[in-house]
């Protein structure tokens, strides 16, 4: 009986006071908009920083020791590759070199900034293409571009892009043929252009004098292990066999991408405060409403309505108002996002947004808990002014 009558009373009250309840839903919708935007931004900025590393094929990333797990600070020589590949438990390994570069192309008004990433074709580190072909060999004058680059520049498979690179004090131009388009790979918040390692070494910006003693250097090695469950064991083995290196898993690698942790914690703090405001707004509204209807609730109890019925009724109202607000907010956010220009680092389909939505759905009942507790404690006697 309690659930049926509780629902009946909850719906009747909401319908007959729909303006008031809608207003609260609207406030929740705005909070939702803000929280999802922050979550989308966190996801987008995070992905921009870590996307390439997070999508690596191999489970482990090998850095130069004392590079503080910073890709750009890490410098490894090609000689290390054989040692890595020979280590027990290692299935394959691929070198990765990164640098910043500018690309230009036919019809471009201004050069585009990209992350130039050098990989060894057929080994971990090379990205999979969704269109076109993989890189053919380690010296090929070819490039795989991320979908973001393709969208932004209009480049496609078969087109030619030109890497503008400063070699010492001279700007050199290196034409490369686009052979494939990968999904939206980004690194350092910049769209990526993936090239063969030797090509990368030749065209990356550098001074005349190489400090590597003639050996080809790159930044990190991506290692695929035979048994992912034993990845930790292989990492320790690599560190024991090869001097001056540090091996971590992929998650640790991207969490150490420059600024990633700081950026994420800033956004998470903002999101936390917004959610806290949400709890206070929902809690405040229902508490004020509760205080206004102490007499009514007392009367209902005097008529024989059990506490459970009163609590169910209030819970239904809180949950419905909240769900309605979250749905409105989510729809508004996605509508707004659709109207936004591409390239803004906001992602609405990641875990962050899912977590934000679930959290938003929880904050309503959480905010309303105080008022539900208050309602169950209303004395029919006091509420009716019966005091002897």
């Amino acid at each position, binding site marked *: 009986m309690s659930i049926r009558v509780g629902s009946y*009373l909850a719906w009747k009250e909401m319908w*007959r006071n729909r303006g008031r309840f809608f207003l609260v839903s609207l406030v929740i919708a705005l909070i939702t908009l803000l929280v999802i935007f922050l979550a989308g931004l966190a996801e987008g900025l995070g992905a921009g920083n870590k996307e390439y590393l997070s999508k690596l094929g191999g489970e482990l990333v090998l850095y130069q020791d004392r590079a503080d797990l910073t890709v750009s600070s890490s410098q490894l020589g090609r000689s290390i590759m054989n040692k890595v590949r020979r280590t027990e438990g290692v299935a394959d390994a691929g070198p990765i070199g990164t640098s910043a570069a500018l690309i230009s192309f036919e019809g471009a008004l201004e050069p585009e900034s990209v992350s130039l990433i050098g990989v060894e074709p057929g080994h971990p580190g090379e990205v999979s293409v969704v269109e076109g072909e993989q890189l053919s060999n380690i010296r090929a004058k070819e490039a795989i571009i991320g979908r973001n680059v393709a969208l932004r520049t209009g480049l496609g498979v078969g087109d030619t892009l030109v890497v503008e690179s400063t070699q010492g004090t001279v700007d050199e131009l290196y034409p490369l043929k686009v052979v494939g388009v990968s999904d939206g790979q980004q690194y350092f918040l910049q769209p990526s252009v993936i090239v063969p390692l030797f090509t990368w070494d030749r065209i990356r910006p550098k001074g005349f004098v190489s400090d590597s003693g003639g050996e080809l250097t790159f930044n990190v090695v991506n290692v695929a292990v035979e048994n992912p469950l034993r990845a930790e064991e292989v990492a320790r083995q690599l560190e024991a066999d090869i001097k001056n290196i540090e091996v971590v898993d992929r998650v640790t690698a991207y969490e150490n991408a420059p600024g990633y942790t700081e950026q994420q914690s800033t956004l998470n703090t903002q999101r936390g405060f917004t959610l806290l405001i949400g709890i206070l707004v929902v809690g405040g509204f229902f508490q004020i409403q509760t205080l206004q209807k102490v007499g009514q609730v*007392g009367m209902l109890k005097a*008529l*024989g309505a059990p506490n459970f019925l009163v609590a169910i009724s209030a819970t239904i109202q809180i949950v419905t108002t909240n769900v309605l607000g979250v749905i409105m907010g989510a729809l508004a956010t996605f509508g707004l996002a659709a109207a936004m220009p591409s390239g803004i680092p906001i992602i609405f389909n990641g875990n962050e947004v899912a977590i934000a939505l679930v959290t938003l759905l929880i904050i309503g009942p959480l905010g309303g808990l105080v008022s539900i507790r208050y309602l169950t404690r209303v004395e029919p006697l006091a509420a*009716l002014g*019966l*005091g*002897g």
Partner: protein
Amino acid sequence: MMETVLSTREVTKIYELEDQVITAVDHVSLDLFRGEFVALVGPSGSGKTSMLAMIAGLLTPTGGEICLDGEEVGQMRESKRTRVRREKIGFTFQAHNLVNYLTALENVELMLRLNSRYDKDGQARSIELLTRLGLEDRLHNLPTQLSGGQRQRVAIARSLIHEPQLVLADEPTANLDTALAHQVVETFSELVHEQNRAGIMVTHDLRMVLYCDRVIEMEDGRLKHVLSDRAQIEQLAGNDPVRNAETVKLLK
């Protein structure tokens, strides 16, 4: 032989407030019979409201017994008292009388819903009762769209619709003008008698005792007088019952 619906024995209520002890109800024993409408009167602080609250199961007596339709309600657990209030008691209050987001009809039907007795027949009976109370064109109005008298009549219908053993009214005429007050209490009394319920009305307004079978007067927590003689009741109600009745007719 008259059937006893309510029986109180030596009911006492003592409030302990810091260093003060107040005896609000002092060893009150009374019986209420089926088909009887009783007025509980007395000055402020006489204990009548505390007595009503204890009978309703809203307040636990300090001592004594309250037996309603064969059940001892005084020392019952709260959940059981809630059930007794829902099934066996009908209420009309002075304020906060109706659920403000339910229409007149929905307010009446609420008691049927709370007792899991809401069906087509219950709906028809609710409409019939409200029609009887002159509210046939106000069925779908919210309390804010009703006058004070109309609201009290809806409350009366609600207190009777689930066929309770006992009907309690706390100052039902407090916010009404004289004409409406007479109209409301007279209708209430008629329905209690017609449906063979037992009713108690707490009131300050002695004119209203005219419609009651018995008047119980309380003072300082004790029973002072019990009037059951018609002439005495009429005298208490207005000294001149004929003139009083004519006034009521005129006012109607």
